[in-house]
């Protein structure tokens, strides 16, 4: 079948359309495609960071990376960290949002203060927590020893599993306000008649939470979990500043290895290979996230 002939007006509109979309495409290429292709290209070279001298090695960086136990250990650490801190963020976030949704005194002030950990700089937050955890002068050990709960200070950041638990706790404290904000916004839009109907049916507070609140929060929680999972997966500064990946690589996550490869071992090409591998894993999260949002749009 011959293609329909476009009128001059249609052709002009088509050109105008291309012209209008061009800036967006150019910006997209500059900030997304170019860095992405650069990283993949870089990962095929052995590059000495300070001088950027390079030699082609093909896929050898990937072979070396996948053959080393370090990659799988770092991936495992990343998954533990992500799953641990995300679970706590969600539980704490929903709990706090439910509290702040009630008619309590100073509700407005409390809603503002709850955002404090999320807004504070990570460096400052880590310094504060390091003092809290300090073995000799930390308030936590001091209180536990004064309370007669422990005889000797606990090493929170230098031994396992304490280090991973501490990092997960600090991460949860830092990022749970994001969950609070999103869940609280959704809570305020749940129709009150749903709760009234549940009450008439004899549902208590717990039943109302599981049968009314949670189903209503489902959509927003899916989005929150996807976003936070991606962000937590690539978290660097908080873990690096708290433990540096130690003790003995026990909290060394993928982003820390990327940093170490690039700037401590001066192997920028290998660091790019790590980063690209990380991106491939993150892609799985992205696909789930995109599918979910598409489903929402078509629903």
């Amino acid at each position, binding site marked *: 079948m011959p293609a329909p002939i476009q009128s001059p007006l249609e052709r002009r509109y088509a050109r105008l359309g291309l012209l209008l979309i061009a800036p967006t495409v150019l910006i997209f290429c500059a900030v997304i495609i170019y860095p992405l292709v650069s990283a993949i290209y870089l990962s095929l070279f052995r590059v*000495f*960071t*300070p*001088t*950027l001298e390079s030699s082609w090695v093909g896929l050898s960086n990937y072979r070396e990376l996948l053959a080393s136990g370090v990659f799988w250990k770092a991936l495992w650490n990343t998954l533990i960290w992500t799953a641990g801190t995300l679970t706590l963020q969600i539980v704490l976030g929903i709990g706090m949002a439910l509290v702040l949704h009630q008619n309590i005194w100073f509700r407005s002030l409390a809603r503002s203060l709850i955002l404090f950990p999320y807004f504070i700089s990570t460096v400052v937050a880590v310094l504060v927590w390091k003092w809290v*955890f*300090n*073995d*000799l*002068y930390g308030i936590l050990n001091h209180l536990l020893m004064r309370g007669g709960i422990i005889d*000797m*200070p*606990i*090493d*929170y*950041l*230098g*031994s396992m599993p304490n280090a991973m638990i501490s990092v997960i706790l600090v991460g949860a404290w830092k990022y749970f306000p994001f969950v609070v904000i999103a869940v609280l916004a959704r809570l305020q839009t749940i129709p009150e008649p749903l709760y009234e109907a549940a009450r008439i049916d004899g549902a208590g507070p717990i039943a109302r939470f599981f049968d009314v609140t949670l189903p209503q929060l489902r959509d927003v929680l899916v989005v929150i979990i996807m976003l936070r999972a991606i962000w937590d997966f690539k978290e660097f500064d908080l873990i690096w500043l708290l*433990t*540096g*990946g*130690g*003790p*003995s*690589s026990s909290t060394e996550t993928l982003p820390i290895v990327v*940093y*170490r490869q*690039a*700037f*401590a*071992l*001066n*192997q*920028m090409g290998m660091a790019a290979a790590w980063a690209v591998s990380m991106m491939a894993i993150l892609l799985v999260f992205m696909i789930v996230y995109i599918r979910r949002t598409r489903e929402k749009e078509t629903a």
Partner: protein
Amino acid sequence: MKNSLTFPNGLTRRSMLAGLAAGTALSALPRRAHAQDVTLRWWSPQGAPAQAEAYKFQIAAFEALNPGIKVVFETTSDEGYAPQLAAAFASGEVPDLVTHLPSFSVQTYYSNGLIEPFDDVINAIGADDYYPGANDVFKTADGKYCGTGIGNTAANMLWLRRDLMEAAGVAAAPKTWDELRAACQAMQKDGIFGAPLPYGQNSMTSLIFIGFIHGAGGQVFTPDLQVAIDSEQTRAALEFYKSMRELCPPGATNYSWGESLTAFVSGATATGIYAGRVLANVVAQNPGIADHVTCTTYPTISADVAPWTFNDFPSVFIPAQSKNKDAAKAFAAFLFDPEGYIKQLHAAPGHVLPVLKSINENPAYQDNDIIKKYPAEVDLMSGAAAGGFNLGYESSAHASNDRAGEVIASNAIADLVQRVVLNGDDVNAALGDCAKAIDAIMKA
């Protein structure tokens, strides 16, 4: 009445004259880069408040002599300078002058063509004024110098509290590891721990443990730079280091230089392992113990093995990518101008020790409360530092190791310590992995 001529920026006449003298001495250097509106960026990991004050004085004096040149001081850190400089070199946004980095890092950078030869600055300062061999550690394979020392540091001195020793019945400073462990066991009571040895995943653990390997009579590399860490001496050092864990605070698993220093200065540990900064910090922060503090070289496995002092040979160097090399060279030489240099040394008395004979003999340098209060300790540290070594220069028989900086930055040695001491991993396996990792870095 005595007239005192002062200049608008607060400089004294004496400092101006000294500056002029230094300016004359610098005439051998390339003329300053017609330096209108030049800004020099100066990086250093040594940025304690008192030191920053001394730097301010030196900067003001230099700027007064060189209108149009501005110097901006930026602090880096002992743990952070390697990544920061790697990024700076890669981007071309380098500082114009870097001070107080260990000599082995400077050699690494020079071997990769990242650093400007420093011979003309050394000549401007006065090559004859240096202590004999003071610049050997900066000599490169091409016969030039990649930098110079801005001071000496005896970084692994054993710090002791005489009051605690006396109370615990420890008659003399320990000379061997067995004596040290026994002394720490005797002094560990009433909430005070024996020692603040580092077990963290950081450079301090690596650098300090290298001292223990040498303290057992071992070495990390042979003189021709073959990896030699997998040895019985390293095993002995690991065994001793592990036995000391119960005598260190629980948080020593995360200790670096700052935490280790604070543990001793605050009185939380009976012994310390650090450089001369302990003296100033004790006097300022814990004067109650100031009269009881002393130091000695760190014990070794037996009296047959001589102490091995870790001197990082704090350096001065100029990145090759600096756009203001002439001005940077002039400023580098000016840092050794007596008035400013002495102020800088006095900012951490006993910590950074002078490399110039004329400075050590200068009454103004000796006229310092800390140096006068602890003359024996400062003398001991000066001697120990002068005969000190580091991974880039393990002994006078060793070739210069320009990969030492990367070995330290890789944390391979700290990881060895953590695996054996904290995780209880098999020593042979951990040592084998460590040797392989170091070998890979050497061959990369």
